[in-house]
């Protein structure tokens, strides 16, 4: 199969995350590669099926559209996926792009979100992953 572009969307309950100081049960991850083998969609431990050469794009939305939320940081084994924070042209909206460098079996990664007017940073404790 040819390399493809896969979008990974983080849907977060900002109010719930701030109230519990945790992303547990307040994060729903989705991608558009279920038909090729991604699993655990709609949970915080999404397993995205990837292959070498795939481009990954992480986007974000809040359950409460008025609440502030941002993808602050994504951390992963840099020999597996090269990550870069980017902005959409002529906007301040951030997305993260990853380039899968080699075939993987299972590579977990951590996302740190910035939420609320105090821009509090909360990271995922249960980790999503890339699977081969």
């Amino acid at each position, binding site marked *: 199969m040819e390399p*493809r*572009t896969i*979008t990974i969307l983080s849907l977060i309950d900002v109010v719930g995350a701030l109230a519990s100081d945790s992303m547990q049960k307040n994060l729903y991850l989705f991608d*558009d590669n*279920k038909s090729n083998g991604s699993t655990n969609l*709609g949970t915080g431990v999404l397993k995205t099926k990837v292959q070498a050469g795939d481009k990954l794009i992480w986007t974000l*939305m809040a*359950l409460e559209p008025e609440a502030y939320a941002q993808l602050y940081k994504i951390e992963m084994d840099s020999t597996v996926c090269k990550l870069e924070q980017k902005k*959409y042209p002529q906007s301040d909206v951030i997305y993260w*792009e990853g380039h899968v460098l080699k075939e993987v079996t299972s590579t977990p990664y951590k996302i740190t979100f910035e939420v609320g007017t105090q821009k509090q940073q909360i990271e995922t404790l249960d980790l999503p992953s890339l699977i081969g």
Partner: protein
Amino acid sequence: MAQEVTVIMLVDVPAALEANTLEGNLYLVDNLLTEGSENEGTGKLISAVNGTHWFDGSQASEQLINWLPYSITSLSPQLPRFYADDRLDDFKDRAINSLLNRPGTKNFAAVADMEGGVAIDPFPEPQDVPVLTSVADTHGRRIVDDVPLMDLRGNFISFDDAVPMVKAVAPGEDAQVPGGPSPDISYISYLTPQITNITGEAVDKGVIYPAQYGTPAPIKGGWYWCASVNTYMTGVYSYTLHITLYQPERHGNEVIWKPVYFTQDASIKVTSGTMRNGFTNGGLGLLPVL
């Protein structure tokens, strides 16, 4: 307590269009997990709507449900819905400005300067000009024109670049080589799914009263569906969302978004408790003063 239930509807649009079903390709999440909603993040969401009543049984507070649809394969939902249109306007302005400032158009350049058009951009090459798509109705009539095609990074896509990503409708037109690489249909930003109606048991029995409303919030694109809930009718009720997805197709040298219609069932679980003081959990009246 008055609640505003937000139901986010996410659709894997290219997968749903490929499989011609929303089954397994649509996900619903609401903001009432802690209040008792079930099946979050699946297509079978049951939203908890916890109403209140007065001592005589009459409804004491208003509960509202909002439905907000999004495509996963799309630009970030944090961008305004009209981001692509705004970028197109900016592209046109810069193209005109560049044309005005070309050698031999001094008079026009003077006018541009008077109007503040001083930035000189290189005139766009043909391969950089975005393909302007149209949205069709059921009968193939074009109802919206000049919708620029964008990739998932917010860059315009020219017609030549769109050829391998958008399927041709006429046989023989497709650029795909048999046995060659398949098109990366998840490369382009898909149009947002639209809810066109809400029907079903909950509507028929007078439990919810849905309608489409206008909103100035740019992230909602001007319109959204909302329903008030009659919490006097307790129990579990199903409802049906009528959803339109848009399939991009190449017709000659044009790209047209064809509507494809689906339905999806979900439920609400309505309860009603006695009205109480939110601070003391006791009866209504004056707050205790210590």
